[in-house]
């Protein structure tokens, strides 16, 4: 019995100094293949978002510039027309 007990104790001690087992190098690629595709597609990278925001700002800015220059051209035209009219009213001077 002592022999058996001693052997059992030795077996119980056999995990002393154990190192962790490591998975194969290919496992990560296998996992990536199994990941749901839709979750990955839902995410727009921040870098791309920045470009989209910059492009949108540029379009809005250009519209503002074009619109404001149109308004000032229209105002100049109207002012010139008014000047001519005022001059025309001075016929009897």
């Amino acid at each position: 019995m002592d022999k058996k007990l001693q052997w059992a104790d030795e077996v119980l001690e056999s995990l002393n100094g154990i190192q962790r087992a490591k998975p194969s190098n290919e496992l990560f690629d296998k996992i990536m293949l199994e990941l749901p595709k839709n979750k990955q597609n839902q995410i727009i990278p921040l870098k791309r978002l920045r470009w989209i925001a910059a492009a949108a700002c540029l379009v809005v800015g250009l519209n503002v510039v074009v619109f404001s220059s149109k308004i000032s051209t229209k105002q100049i035209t109207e002012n010139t027309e008014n000047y001519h009219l005022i001059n025309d009213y001075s016929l009897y001077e």
Partner: protein
Amino acid sequence: MIKKISEGNQEAFKQLYTLYKTKVYNTAIGYIQNIEEAEEITQDVFITIFNKANTFKGKAKVSTWIYRITVNKALNQIKKQGRIIKLDKEVQDYHKINFQHPGVIIENKEKSTYLFSVINTLIENQKTAFILSYVEGLPRQEVADIMNTSLKSVESLLQRAKTNLKKKLISIYPEGNKKK
């Protein structure tokens, strides 16, 4: 990192994988005792982490959460395969599996095959306490956190696990063979 993973960030997922792959795989192999199946469990654990990262509330440590997932998956796998062995006769048959953990030092290789052959005869909580403490080498407090129990309970579980393992080992002592 977990927040980034919940948003589908693959780079963050890769970093987490690098940090935890060995811990997950080694824990799984302690229960499953089969290289291919332990890899399947590891794969399953990381897919679950990717899909459920948004459910992580930060109440426990990330490592605790990951170990819990691993332990649950491994125990479920064992249940599915009906690996719970109760009779000594079955222990002797099961012993023939002859699993050698790749991390066991050379001089202990043969003895450890006997130990692994009887680990799955333990009840779930004793088995988890034993594997996390002796195969994975975690501190008792971390084992207690993973098992959501007290340090005292873990110590008691380990004591009972060792007593039970010793009884099983005595019952499979290789009579007539050269002492290994």
